[in-house]
């Protein structure tokens, strides 16, 4: 494949600046953006929390607003559109840290700014250095999936999860600086960050030279138009989407209008050889592993597994947790290690094994994302019609707001579903192969060694794809 081209077709450097349109720029520079979106989601999540609270422990999930909106609509939108296309756009409008951030700033709309003074209310402590990475998010996300069998059938479980996240974000906002909760704790932040490296959208500097000459970095320290990057990035210098929460504060604070929102080819950030780490490698593998577990458990033909996950018996549930955790934390990473070891051996280069392991883990991101998209299709196409019901009767109080409370269950395109899933997975594989070949060239200096070293990784990607295809059509 041509060097510097995504899939040999689109130059990696290709960008289309969305903020070149004056109305887009005006919109993103307004302080109502993203506040208006957040306020809408605050309303939506208030309804979700009410539905979870009144839905209790026993009400079946299909007719619960909270469960349907969070686990059917939101999750599917997140995996199919928000992350792959719009990067961390969910973080832009996420209502969960809303209260915490309001307390920190003591303002909702305006900016509390005084040159040289910390604008935030609270203790503003630094998050412990040892936790300044994705490990905690890896563990918390994995732990959250232990209860996935409850979240989709028991409204109260969703209520407890969301309420706990909100409470934790408020507490952490008062103790720690800026978006510490979102950066290091939120269970769904880590994978959004990693997978956003594949996304078609980015916030970046337009002309680095303008920033180099600029004496006052308002994007970092804030000014009267906006806050310094709440995600602790240096907006004038960051090069990958991982930690950019797309809050658009830097578009507001930049005095030279030098920040842009761009469309770009998919996957280019996965090639940025900066700040790669074992925490992110594990995140990539855990996400792939959980997608496989979810397929097997919730969409596979093995009822026993589903009963285990739904905690029909305590011993079954503990078995599920044990298998789930060891598969994701030990077995899959160990299998990947074997292939990586093979890659290093085949390349015959003295590159540290850890570096090879970490580097190639980024090649699994497109495939992992594709597996999640395919899994999401298996959720939304059969179950999407329930959404019409819950919109009309959100609290199961017998309402019929839009006349759709008794809309019959109508699966959509389920005949096409396996083909769509296969297609999605093959596209994911294609991107993964492209990234793997490029990472091989980054990792092993000699071109021939890179080709040799890439083969075992392509083997891993191919075997994983075959396994997933077998799950879809088997």
């Amino acid at each position, binding site marked *: 494949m041509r060097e510097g081209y995504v899939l040999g077709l689109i130059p990696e450097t290709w960008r289309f600046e969305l903020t070149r349109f004056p109305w887009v720029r005006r919109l993103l520079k307004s302080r109502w953006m993203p506040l208006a979106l957040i306020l809408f989601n605050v309303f939506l999540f208030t309804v979700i929390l009410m539905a979870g609270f009144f839905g209790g422990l026993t009400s079946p999930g299909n007719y619960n607003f909270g469960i349907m909106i969070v686990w059917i609509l939101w999750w599917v939108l997140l995996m199919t559109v928000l992350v792959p296309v719009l990067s961390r756009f969910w973080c832009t409008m996420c209502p969960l840290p809303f209260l915490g951030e309001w307390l920190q700033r003591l303002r909702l709309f305006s900016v509390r700014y005084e040159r*040289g003074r*910390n604008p935030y209310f609270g203790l*503003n402590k*630094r*998050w412990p*250095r040892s936790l*300044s*990475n994705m490990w905690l998010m890896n563990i918390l996300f994995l732990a959250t999936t232990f209860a996935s069998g409850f979240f989709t059938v028991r409204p109260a479980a969703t209520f407890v999860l969301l309420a706990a996240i909100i409470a934790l974000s408020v507490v952490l906002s008062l103790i720690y*600086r800026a978006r510490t909760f979102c*950066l290091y704790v939120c269970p769904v932040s880590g994978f959004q960050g990693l997978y956003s490296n594949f996304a078609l959208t980015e916030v970046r500097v337009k002309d680095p*030279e303008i*920033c*180099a*000459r*600029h*004496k*006052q*970095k308002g994007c*970092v*320290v804030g000014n009267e138009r906006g806050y*310094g990057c709440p*995600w*602790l*990035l*240096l*907006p*004038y*210098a*960051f*090069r990958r989407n*991982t*930690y950019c929460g797309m809050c658009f504060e830097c578009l507001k604070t930049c005095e030279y209008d030098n920040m842009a929102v761009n469309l770009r080819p998919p996957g280019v950030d996965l090639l940025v050889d*900066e*700040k790669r780490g074992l925490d992110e490698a594990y995140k990539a593998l855990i996400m792939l592993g959980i997608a496989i577990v979810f397929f097997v458990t919730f969409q596979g033909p093995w009822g026993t597994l589903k009963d285990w996950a739904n905690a029909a018996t305590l011993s079954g549930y503990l078995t599920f947790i044990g298998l789930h955790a060891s598969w994701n934390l030990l077995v899959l990473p160990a299998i990947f290690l074997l292939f990586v070891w093979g890659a290093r051996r085949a390349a015959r280069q003295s590159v540290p094994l850890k570096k090879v392991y970490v580097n190639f883990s980024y090649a699994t991101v497109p495939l992992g994302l594709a597996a999640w998209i395919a899994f999401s299709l298996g959720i939304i196409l059969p179950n999407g019609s329930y959404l019409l019901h819950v919109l009309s009767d959100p609290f199961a109080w017998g309402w019929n707001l839009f006349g759709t409370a008794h809309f019959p269950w109508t699966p959509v395109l389920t005949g096409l579903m396996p083909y769509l899933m296969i297609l999605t997975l093959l596209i994911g594989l294609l991107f993964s192969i492209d990234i793997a070949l490029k990472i091989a060239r980054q990792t092993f200096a000699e071109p021939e060694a890179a080709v040799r070293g890439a083969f075992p990784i392509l083997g891993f990607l191919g075997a994983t794809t075959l396994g997933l295809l077998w799950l879809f059509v088997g």
Partner: protein
Amino acid sequence: MKRSLAELSPPEVLKVAIWIEERNARIYENYAEMFEWYEPDVARTFREMAREEREHGRRLNAMYAERYGEATCDLTDEDIRELVEAPIFEDGEAFVYDRVRRRQALEVGLLAERRARAFYMESAERVEEAALRALFRELAEIEAEHEAFFVRKLAEDRAAPSAES
């Protein structure tokens, strides 16, 4: 319309060089502000660097006064095309990973000075006018002294027991 540094007269070049030092001092002060809440040691280093840049500017100013008297010149660093000696802290995720040390701040300064020296040397090779060439060489030598300052500071930092803690 921006001009190239090589198209300027010697007094103009010197005036721009003074502005560059002043600009850098302000950039370092801003970096100090960025790091104030984060790592006081790094912030302090950037303040020291800002002071050093001001001192460089003061020395160049004295040189200007000695050679060209009080003749005014409106040019600033923003009027020239080239980006000379612009220090930039490029670790975009530094705060996220919380790993910035005093050494990195000093390296930012060292790199800027090195680039400036290389730029002046290159310009000296390119220009034909003897006076300008001489000035570029002189500026390159001055930048070499500045570079030595950062090299010395980095060595002190490495020798300090808490350098890598």
